[in-house]
């Protein structure tokens, strides 16, 4: 303990030096990353399977599950993939960014193991509660609908565990700085992870503020929970937590660019400011879920839903340029300088870490980003509130964006952290494409169905058991069928991912010194790192074209929806 408290004295810790990056890897941190990554994949497998069952039930021609099971499985799908898979993986990212990337050690690894166990207990208990069948309240659990107490307790335990790890992330940073593990400012990827961690604190506290009273209500200790207050506070957790995902996966975009292409941020100032905008404004997004509610004023809605004049959206639009821009600059330095797009054509498309990251970047922007702004526009929301457009949008952000980025990063975690060579490289190569195409399909077709009025979380769009019948258009049925087809494609990609991860961890060839990776990193290595990247004056014609396409699509789609709105009945 004495060495630990003494300022400027580095404490000894068991570590190895990575032969590919030259980074010093704390073995305690490495084991924690492994544990969290494995837990993440387990819950992805469970939640992904549930997602497939949901999609097959909503495919009118298949209509797989009975209603009761459908609502149960849908509740489980949300909890397993949106919470457990993503947050376990983010714990691994936080530990990685605050230790290995800084050549630093994990502070109090035993506490992190305790937190891990707490999170596993929470996640398992949550699944038990859902599978028992009396907590089919959906991921959002809006009162006055009530789940069993252990459903809420499970979420609280999981969140407490996550909060502990977030605390350790801050501790790691402080100790690393004090012990002189790194010089100067922290790397950009760690800065992005810090953004995620800061938003996580806000998120988890919001969650506690609403889930603890809700648990007490479920126990019978409180007489009621106001449904509108619940939504305001719950979405302080529910939406802000999606911004943790954004910060985390944008950090990984930068990480993959650095490791695979030798990319350097065009300007540290711009990229970091973009992250900082997330911290300043993202927590306002609770309002996205309250635009169709009674009793909230228009000015409150406008200021909050737009993150105060869209300043957080601005952050994402900046990353949308700086990430591919830094890749283009790096590729041009790598010698692919011909024409507008040689840098992109000659990118390592066969490396799943790159292809997954690239697809994540493009689809997060085009599908998740644009639809999010439209959905979050005060008046336009009435067109899609609670329709399938909403899950369409967030599958664009959380599946094509976050999940695909995490999958891509896994192809670096396996060789570099687990030190196992990726088994079945041919399957690994096609995995991001399969999963990406499938996920893009479900996002787009759900958005299409939502635009045609199909409700989310709904077992039967033929309304065959309803007293007053109603029939959706043929187009809506077509969209739901296509959604089912693409869900199967995405599921194939998901299954391959799980197989490759499990196979590699169990049977992958152990990586020893002098090993050549199947999917190599950028040859420059760490030495060239800080010099490599952009020219003194940056010329990025390819990125400019991509950004222009994005911007035009954004503007057009935005106005198309105002056109739709203007055709509705009048209301004020």
């Amino acid at each position: 303990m004495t060495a630990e408290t003494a300022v400027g004295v580095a404490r000894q810790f068991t570590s190895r030096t990575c032969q590919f990056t030259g980074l010093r890897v704390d073995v305690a941190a490495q084991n924690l990353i492994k544990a969290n990554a494995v837990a993440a994949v387990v819950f992805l497998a469970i939640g992904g399977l549930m997602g497939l069952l949901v999609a097959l039930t909503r495919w009118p021609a298949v209509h797989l599950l009975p209603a009761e099971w459908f609502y149960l499985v849908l509740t489980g799908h949300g909890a397993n993939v949106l919470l457990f898979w993503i947050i376990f993986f983010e714990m691994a990212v936080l530990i990685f960014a605050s230790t290995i990337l800084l050549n630093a050690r994990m502070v109090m690894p035993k506490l992190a193991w305790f937190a891990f166990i707490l999170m596993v207990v929470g996640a398992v208990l949550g699944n038990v509660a859902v599978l028992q069948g009396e907590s089919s309240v959906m991921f959002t659990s809006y009162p006055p609908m009530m789940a069993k107490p252990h459903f809420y307790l499970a979420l609280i335990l999981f969140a407490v565990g996550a909060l502990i790890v977030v605390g350790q992330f801050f501790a790691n940073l402080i100790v690393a700085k004090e012990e002189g593990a790194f010089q100067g400012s922290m790397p950009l990827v760690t800065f992005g992870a810090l953004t995620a961690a800061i938003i996580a604190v806000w998120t988890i506290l919001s969650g506690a503020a609403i889930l603890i009273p809700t648990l007490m209500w479920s126990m019978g200790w409180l007489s009621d929970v106001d449904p509108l207050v619940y939504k305001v506070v719950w979405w302080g957790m529910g939406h802000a937590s999606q911004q943790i995902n954004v910060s985390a996966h944008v950090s990984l975009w930068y990480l993959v660019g650095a490791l695979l292409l030798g990319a350097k941020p065009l300007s540290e100032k711009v990229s970091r400011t973009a992250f900082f905008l997330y911290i300043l404004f993202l927590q306002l997004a609770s309002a996205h879920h309250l635009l169709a509610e009674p009793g909230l004023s228009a000015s409150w809605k406008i200021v909050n839903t737009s993150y105060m004049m869209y300043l957080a959206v601005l952050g994402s639009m900046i990353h949308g340029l700086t990430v591919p821009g830094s890749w283009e600059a790096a590729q041009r330095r790598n010698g692919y300088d011909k024409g507008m797009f040689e840098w992109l054509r000659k990118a390592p498309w066969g490396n799943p870490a790159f292809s997954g990251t690239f697809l994540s970047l493009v689809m997060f922007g085009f599908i998740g980003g644009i639809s999010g702004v439209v959905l979050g526009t005060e008046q336009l929301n009435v067109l899609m509130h609670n329709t399938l457009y909403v899950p369409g949008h967030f599958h664009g952000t959380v599946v094509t964006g976050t999940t695909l980025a995490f999958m891509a990063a896994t192809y670096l975690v396996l060789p570099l952290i687990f030190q196992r060579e990726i088994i079945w490289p041919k399957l690994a190569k096609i995995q991001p494409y399969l999963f990406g195409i499938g996920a893009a399909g479900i996002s787009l077709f759900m958005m299409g169905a939502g635009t045609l009025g199909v409700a989310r979380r709904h077992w039967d769009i033929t309304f065959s058991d309803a007293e007053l019948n109603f029939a959706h258009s043929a187009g809506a049925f077509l969209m739901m069928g296509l959604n089912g087809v693409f869900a199967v494609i995405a599921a194939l990609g998901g299954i391959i991912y799980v197989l490759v991860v499990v196979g590699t961890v169990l049977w992958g060839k152990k990586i020893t010194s002098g090993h050549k990776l199947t999917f190599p990193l950028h040859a420059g290595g760490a030495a060239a790192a800080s010099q490599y990247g952009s020219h003194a004056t940056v010329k990025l014609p390819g990125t400019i074209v991509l950004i222009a396409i994005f911007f035009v699509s954004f503007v057009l789609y935005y106005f198309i929806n105002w056109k739709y709105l203007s055709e509705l009945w009048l209301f004020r």
Partner: protein
Amino acid sequence: MAIAPPEQRIWWREPIERVELTWIVIAFLWALFMFFFMIAWHFIGQQNLSPEAYRILPSAYEQKVEEFAKKYQVREEKGVPVVRPPAGSDVYMLGRLWQWWPILELEQGQSYRFHLSSIDWQHGFSLQPTNINLQVHPGYEHVITLTPTETGQFGIVCNEFCGIGHHTMTGKIYVTQKKAETAPRVAQKEERR
């Protein structure tokens, strides 16, 4: 590199590349435009959600809707009263497990003060195929001035999950031409199909 500390320790003194600056300016202007367009729509648009709402006990709201339905009921459809309130008056609808009640018959081009609340759980009022979607809370009476612009038969679906019968929760609104008789209304209904 993004995984190494920045070359310049004081990174906020770095110059910004021109391409970045241009994009930031364009993106920022677009952000401002989108922000002010929401405000502008309150002046130029005809679709703005009313913030008018009142706290009310679910039982009190239920009573109000029942009185309203009794007063203006014109017929019955599958056990649900069809209510034709005077043009321009206050009209009421409630959501409950699992129906929208009662059925309304409105006139095209007339403005109604449309009251909406739930008497049990949260519901999602989704008027189809028009696609107007509103959240309905118990304990909050939402009042919207609503003007139907097209005639025909419209379905109301519930799009907030409300338990095992959620997918059977439907309702109906008929919109007739101004001062129209019964006959043309039926004709239009056929036409819509």
